[in-house]
């Protein structure tokens, strides 16, 4: 039976393709954005229907399918283009074969449905897999990129290291912060570590808890931890929550924290040419007027 259906479809491929193209064209307005040109849509449709037919002829040509799905992914077309296209093909083909048949009983219909499904299934499976594989790939790449950003450690001077935190701190990230902080402290031989939370949107008890633990651990390896970048609203919520951050020094800005860190390591910032600066300041406004 299957080969008979196949023969009907292949013999009348031109008619079926035309019917398919007509029906796909009616879907166009509702589904796809107007940014796609007519020519591109038309050529892609042709390619699509060719692929369906070649899949009916020699089941299992995955290379062509793969190339086609990669092309669609690159174009950024929705998955619904593929599922719609295959659904329409099923409908058109089944209708066509039924029109061509003389005697139709339930067994015939069930065989026909099975055959058409068997042609379409490998195509849909492959294309959907390619699409979802592509998404998973993007997600895992982004996760990796995020992880690289999540807990950077910058040795700014001998014995002074800064860890700027930007964005939400979750449990996964909190672990990374702790590990990087301790590894870095030992590796860079830091005496003072500054944790900058200017970019952390919310400091709740969990975030505070992790920071306290990290600071405690840093203290255990012999360094001092300074928490900097505490915005006024964060300071108020920390007080409201009743979190005790008095075990280590805290500062409002990285600048103040850095000065404190220099103090702790017996250093300070010295202006090299203080006198010249004063003279310049006197001359500058005069020069500006003339």
């Amino acid at each position, binding site marked *: 039976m299957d080969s008979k259906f196949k023969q009907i479809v292949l013999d009348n491929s031109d008619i079926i393709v035309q019917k398919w193209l007509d029906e796909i064209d009616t879907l166009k307005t509702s589904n796809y954005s107007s940014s796609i040109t007519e020519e591109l849509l038309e050529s892609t449709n042709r390619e699509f229907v060719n692929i369906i037919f070649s899949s009916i002829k020699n089941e299992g040509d995955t290379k062509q399918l793969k190339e086609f799905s990669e092309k669609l992914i690159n174009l950024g077309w929705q998955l619904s283009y593929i599922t719609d296209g295959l659904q329409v093909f099923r409908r058109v083909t089944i209708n066509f074969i039924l029109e061509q048949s003389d005697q139709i009983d339930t067994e015939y219909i069930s065989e026909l449905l099975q055959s058409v499904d068997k042609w379409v299934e490998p195509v849909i499976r492959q294309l959907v897999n390619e699409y979802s594989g592509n998404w998973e790939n993007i997600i895992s790449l982004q996760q990796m990129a995020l992880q690289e950003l999540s807990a950077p450690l910058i040795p700014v001077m001998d014995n002074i290291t800064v860890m700027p935190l930007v964005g939400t701190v979750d449990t996964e990230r909190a672990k990374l912060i702790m590990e990087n902080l301790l590894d870095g402290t030992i590796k860079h031989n830091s005496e003072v570590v500054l944790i900058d939370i200017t970019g952390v949107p919310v400091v709740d008890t*969990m975030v505070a808890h992790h920071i306290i633990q990290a600071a405690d651990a840093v203290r255990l390896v012999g360094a001092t931890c300074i928490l900097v970048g505490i915005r006024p*609203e964060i300071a108020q919520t920390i007080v409201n929550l009743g*979190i005790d951050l008095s075990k280590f020094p805290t500062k409002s800005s990285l600048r103040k924290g850095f000065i404190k860190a220099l103090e702790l390591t017996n250093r300070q910032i010295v202006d090299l040419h203080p006198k010249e600066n004063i003279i310049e300041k006197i001359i500058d406004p005069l020069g500006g007027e003339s």
Partner: protein
Amino acid sequence: MEPQSCVKIKQEWDIVKARQLGRDIAREVGFGTVDQARIATTISELARNIYLYAEDGEICFEVSEESGHKGILISSVDTGPGIENLSQVMEDGYSTSGGLGAGLPGVKRLVDKFDIESETGKGTQIQAVKWLR
């Protein structure tokens, strides 16, 4: 009364989602940055409790108006194990998960009105209101 908007809490990232939505609503109502931070922190604590202890629940927001006062109502409903000893949980420093134990008592101090109801084996409902000043 505006329609409710809710966020289901199932994964850790849902906490961020709830926080973001709550902060947006708070900004629209007209809260300043300090109160926005308080509201965001409240949501964070409540959502984290659902994530840590109940596994299934949601955070809902409502803009409420009462005798000329405008405010945001944050409710947390879960079908988790419930809290056995409410008074102990509301004490500072009590935690069953090794945390700071400042979550619920802290939230109570962050908002203007705080109600908690819990039944062992059935779940916990919390309502927190912050008024616009």
